[in-house]
């Protein structure tokens, strides 16, 4: 079957099958920031935005993407770089395999959350696994970035 969707601002047509997930279609389209790590919707490495909402592309049937707007990290380089600097300073990038999905979710969080408490941040990002860092450095980076972009926890 054929689907048509907007990928990072451009209309694309893709051939897919009912049992295919969006993740494989996107990688076939050359979008390599989207990673597969777990195939069971548990790691967050495949996070993309569907109509602006963070979505696990491994658990999203490709046919449902028809007519939707898909955003991946490729379209967010500038914004990603502003956050990346904080991650790099902490050494929180490590192997990097979890980074694209994590960054997609962090950027979505910044748009969506209103109160950036440590707990809210952790809960929002809970679906993004990382084995290298043990998470702590990621949170230091997120906190420093939020602070320097004027998004602090309301209660602090």
């Amino acid at each position, binding site marked *: 079957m054929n689907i048509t969707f907007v990928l990072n601002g451009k209309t694309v047509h893709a051939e897919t*099958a009912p049992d295919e997930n969006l993740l*494989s279609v996107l*990688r*076939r389209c*050359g979008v*390599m*920031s*989207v*990673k*597969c*790590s*777990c*195939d*069971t*919707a*548990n*790691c967050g*490495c495949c996070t993309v935005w569907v109509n602006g909402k963070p979505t696990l592309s491994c658990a999203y049937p490709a046919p449902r993407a028809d007519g939707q707007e898909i955003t*991946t*990290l*490729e379209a967010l*380089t500038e914004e*990603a*770089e502003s*956050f*990346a600097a904080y*991650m*790099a*300073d*902490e*050494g*929180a*990038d*490590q*192997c*990097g*395999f*979890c*980074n*694209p999905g994590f*960054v997609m979710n962090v950027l979505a969080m910044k748009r969506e959350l209103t109160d950036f408490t440590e707990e809210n941040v*952790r*809960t929002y*990002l*809970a*679906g*993004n*696994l*990382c*084995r*290298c*860092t*043990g*998470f*702590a*450095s*990621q*949170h230091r980076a997120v906190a420093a970035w939020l602070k320097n972009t004027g998004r602090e926890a309301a209660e602090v």
Partner: protein
Amino acid sequence: MKQISRPVRKKDAFALLTGKPVYTADIFQQDALTVRLLRSPHAFADITGIDTSAALKVPGVACVLTWRDVPDIRFTIAGQAVPEWSPYDRKLLDSTVRYVGDPVAIVAAETPAAADKALKLIRVTYRVKEPLLDARAALDNPILVHPESDWRTVADFGADAKRNLCAHEIDRVGDAEAKLKECAYVAEGTYHTGQVSQCFMEPYTTGAYTDSFGRMTVVSSTQIPFHVRRIVSTALQIPLRNVRVIKPRVGGGFGAKQTAVSEIYAAAAAKATGRPCMLQYTRQEIFEAGSPRHEMEITVRVGADSEGHILAIDHRVLSNTGAYGEHGPTTIQLSGRQPTSIYRYAKDIYFEGTVVYTNTVPAGAYRGFGVTQGAFAVESTVNELARQIGIDPIEIRRINLLREGDVMGIYDNGEVTESCRFIDCLNRADELFGWKENAKRRVMPDGMIRAGGIAAAMQGSGIAFVDTATATVRLVEDGSYILEIGAADMGTGCDTILAQIAAEALGCSVDRVHTAAVDTDHSPYDTGSYASSTTYVTGNAVVKACAALKAKILTAAGALLGPDAGEMTLDGSGVSAGGRTVSLREISLHTQSGQSVMLQATESHSGKVSPPPFIVSMAEIELDPGTGRVRVTRLVNVIDCGTVINTALARVQAEGAAMQALGMALTERAAVGENGRLHEHSLLTYGMPTRLDIPEITVDFCPSYEETGPFGAKSIGEVAINATAPAITEAVYNASGIRVHSLPVNPENLI
């Protein structure tokens, strides 16, 4: 400005963080055939027939390979220097399958769907045999996992396939049995750790193709490019000179990629089809046929005199290597040597290690490499001993931990530690944790019980007399340097750390050094990134190569500055003498025209010692007495890894290792069921910690200066995982009075 002992951003940080295509699956030919493996549903069976005809008819299927189609030769896929210290017990494909997940057939097809369809159509008939699943029953069991006559070893590690014995090891000093009899106190216990998964995020991924010269090129997510070259050459019976291995960015390894798990299958498909082929494991395959930590059962006796001097240790380890013996004979050594050798008065030590085959997932290397399992047992027993004597577990360590100049028990034949700030680590952890107050059992207002625990451990820094690293460094005409190494950055940041070491040696800034990722056609030889060797062994090769290059640069500069220039100094901009400076660009350009000088140097290094880094770990837990649930609330890890080359990356290494240890202690489990199938084989059920589980974690360093290391450095990656699990279970003991003997902690036992 110093280029070491400070935080430096990883050179690949922005590429990784903005999702650039850098991993094997991103950069390999996208029109490559998809490779999939048909795996055995049985724990033990002989294949009596395979019919591939229907599979081959599926449109788009390029090949279906079975044991009949591949070289009939046994080898090991463990990444080790020769002579390989693992049995030659594995074939590319065999007519006997020995665990649930053992490959039966290799399929390559135009699309994943076609490959999957073909897998379903392969008709295999099995003569199912009774499997051997319990490691405790394996030795001399009538069921033999490897009865075949061509099983062999090329080194003597006490293996005997006729007994299901993969390795047998005894190390001793003094007479532990006699000494234990003299001891005023003896604590004893049996401990068990399971087959936990490294949970690296990038699955095993390999692409392979034949290049224009007819050579097999393997692009792979590996820690061991040079060993992969040899293993692929052996497995496929193609000459070594016709194999090339390229390592792109690697999405985590933790030891798992110190075994050539996926490479041989992708290469076999590429050879058979003449087409580029790519194989990526699913997470289920990683669990069922990856290379997890060896399950171990360990019985320890530790004896002390009435003042609390630990005098004798008897340590017996049973290790389950699963169906194949990768790293079985070496992990067992470390399970005994390091854990028993951190106590300065213990002059009588007996260690016996037995590694057995079973029909379960073949185990391999995982950060800590046996030390983690051994330290859990020894540290738990030392904590028990402290209770018996009636002294604080921190005090028994204050009395007994190694000091500089001490002989280290049975470690590397009684090597002496020349760089050791173990006691400083202990004192610093004491201070950071607030041991006196926070170790105590406290009932919180909400009814939760808090308590603290402690443990200590060491590792090594490379394998002395074995690990070999080479570095090539050259000056290019814009005045920067290219550093070529054969060590594999798997996400730890060694490409950056080694560039820092080079920059420090050459007096330039780190952004003037470009590290080239490994390609066995171009990179100088390195045994690989494992055994905590990269900073220490490869770092030393970098220091040597830079010194040699510096000498060449000074000679070339001397020609430009003239004979009376006086003493020359090299810095990031050029060479100066007597108030005059020639730039690196001038020097470089000068040698590129009409000269027979190459401003390049290559040097090798292999250590004669393996100086251990040390860690003291303290954990505070909160126990819910109603449910038995344990949550770690605080972790303090203080480490002596010698000079800290990159303070940010070292800290993150330690934090990441601590969370792996926490997972191993509390939640991670992949248990073998009755039929040999794993109960847990996905990230949904396995229990890897998430960010909701992170405690308040403090990492600090007490850097000693290791004379034999690059600018005083030792290693960090592995030691950091070793002490946290026993510190957590000691805290559990403190809170509940129950000693945890088997990981992960079972909450039901704590109610």
